[in-house]
């Protein structure tokens, strides 16, 4: 099982991570990925600032990955979550899962994202283009509802 969990300020290479999930082996039949990007529909966002709890962030993602591995026969899992200042259009998070079969890869990626959102200690603050503080992004009930699907 290829497993990689990273919490970092730097950007990452989505392609390389997806490639690595199936590279050099012939037992992987399915690779699913999810990329979360910094969005700015209104044109008023200068950047998101992602605060995290160092130490716990990695540990909590590891626990979420353990939970996914207990449910699905995965051959590779990669989770990368950035912190620090992230501008519109830039990458925030990446989940890649690989399995022999499609259902396991897709469901595990979906599960991992739901629990990263609701369990991993990261918080987003908005900085506006006019220089003002846009405040902390509020947690969404919809995210809790999605995570509750897996009980």
């Amino acid at each position, binding site marked *: 099982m290829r497993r990689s969990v990273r919490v970092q300020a730097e950007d990452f290479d989505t392609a390389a991570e997806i490639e690595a999930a199936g590279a050099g082996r012939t037992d992987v039949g399915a690779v699913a990925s999810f990329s*979360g990007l910094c969005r700015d529909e209104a044109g008023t966002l200068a950047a998101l600032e*992602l*605060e*995290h*709890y160092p*130490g*716990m962030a990695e*540990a*909590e993602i590891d626990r979420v990955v353990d939970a996914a591995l207990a449910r699905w026969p995965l051959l590779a899992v990669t989770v990368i*979550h950035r912190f620090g200042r992230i501008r519109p259009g830039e990458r*925030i*998070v990446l989940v890649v899962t690989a399995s022999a079969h499609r259902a396991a890869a897709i469901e595990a990626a979906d599960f991992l*994202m739901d629990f*990263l*959102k*609701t*369990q*991993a*200690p*990261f*918080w*987003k*603050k908005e900085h506006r283009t006019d220089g003002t503080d846009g405040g*902390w*992004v*509020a*947690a969404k009930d919809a*995210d809790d509802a999605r995570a509750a699907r897996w009980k």
Partner: protein
Amino acid sequence: MTKLVYFAWVREKVGLAEEEATLPPEVATVGDLLLYLRARGDGFAEAFAEPETIRVALDRVHAFPEDPLAGAREIALFPPMTGG
């Protein structure tokens, strides 16, 4: 001594990223701690005005209000997570 760490708007409201504190023995659970911190006044009163909105981690593991502090060395207090 217990290390208390604060994140996001909890950090901003209390005006501290972390502190060392000696918790009185009657502060036994996570719920007790939230009420205790709220009673410290000023920024703490504001940050913990609605204790049910605050999440707590004991030694970097999520905890519930009824969980005992049980000698945790690092207690983190923060709003619901918004990563991903």
